[in-house]
């Protein structure tokens, strides 16, 4: 591994992560590795190491962390957060790191596609013909009582998304 040069570290990164209440606690990590030892994802994919990622983040290795493809492997099961003896909010910190990545234009194309579904339909998993058939067969109305049934409600959601600029943030 290359030497970590202090001149390359971004000391504001931890402050940015700390905007998420509790996430600044990653500096309290004493490397016991309980988080990673119990992690179901690390069990399958050893390259995914939340301890290491959060350690790099607290050191200020911003570019390495944001461009690390494994930050997208966490299933947010919260097992590590529950077990951490230092009360580090690992998952909350990981989610904050992801939002910083997105803000910097780093986002998986597949995730952009999911964002477009919500922008267009108000649902991340919109209705399809198969589900409409199943609904009818069960005696339910073809369209659920959601934004799918009420165009004015969908417009409301789309307006909200315009106000928070989520459409610009996630455009393909």
């Amino acid at each position: 591994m290359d030497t970590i040069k202090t001149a390359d570290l971004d000391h504001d990164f931890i402050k940015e992560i700390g905007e998420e209440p509790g996430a600044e606690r990653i500096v309290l990590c004493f490397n016991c590795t309980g988080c990673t030892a119990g992690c179901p994802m690390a069990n399958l994919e050893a390259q995914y190491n939340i301890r290491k990622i959060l350690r790099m983040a607290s050191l200020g290795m911003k570019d390495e962390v944001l461009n690390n493809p494994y930050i997208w492997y966490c299933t947010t099961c919260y097992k590590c957060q529950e077990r951490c003896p230092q009360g580090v909010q690992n998952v909350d910190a990981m989610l904050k790191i992801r939002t910083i990545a997105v803000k910097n234009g780093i986002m998986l194309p597949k995730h952009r596609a999911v964002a477009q579904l919500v922008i267009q339909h108000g649902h991340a998993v919109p209705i399809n013909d198969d589900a409409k058939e199943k609904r009818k067969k069960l005696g339910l109305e073809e369209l659920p009582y959601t934004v799918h049934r009420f165009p004015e409600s969908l417009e409301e959601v789309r307006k909200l998304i315009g106000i928070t600029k989520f459409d610009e943030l996630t455009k393909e």
Partner: protein
Amino acid sequence: MPTLSFFLGCIMPNRYPGIEIATKQTLAKLDVELVELPGASCCPAPGVFRSFDKATWLAMAARNVVLSEELGYDLLTVCNGCFGSLVDANNLLKEDEKLRAEVNKVLKEIGHEFKGTIAVRHIIEFLHRDVGVDKIKEAVVKPVDLKVAVHYGCHLIKPSKERHLGSVENPRFFDELVEAVGAESIDYEDKLACCGAGGGARTAVLETALQMAEAKVQHAVAAGADCFVDACPFCHLELDVGQTEIAKKFGREYNLPVLHYSQLLGLSMGFTPEEMGIDMNYIKNDEFLKKIGGEQ
């Protein structure tokens, strides 16, 4: 008679409507009134949207909570993901005045205001705490003779500081509800393990997410389970659709049926598997359907 608004979310109405009808039918029999929540949207999914932009996640979740506030009822969800987003957003906005002001600035432009007047409930904790195991036992007309692998999922119980549902490593309340309908809740390896779908992982790294699901299925099969019973349509999809993907990608077939608790409860109340949409799963298992009184 308790009355709650029924928050549908995405996956239940748009992929597994059987869970929707099962929830309506079974809660009616338990004297719980559900009212529609017109115009609700995606919760939005905590693992993806909170990973992209917290302000949008929070504002959209707040709008859904507000729709129920405007009706004057607590909100009920049958999904761990929706529960995660809506409880966390509701708590955050009740506790943090600054955040509430920011969100209300957005909501004002679409004619709403978050006031913090309702609670967000998940069907499993609601049934256990408010309806009670005894009342469920009384409603059973046809005890369900099945060995069940209970799948709690993650966001029903975690983060525990927001949920107050007791032990996250060894919870019992969901098992008690399963046992109330006559079924046996079996122990299986890594019972509390994640299904693999959450956090955007199913979208980002499908094959790895499926490996996580496959481990759960293998452990349940090894313990002699007749089926999974879950508390979340997204876990349901990962375990059900996931098995068809595992068969295709990895060449291994399990055909372990997957039921949402509302569907299991429906069987015990005398509804048929078809009325509860259990035959609409992607996994087809005729032997199981026959065992639970299906048509064939």
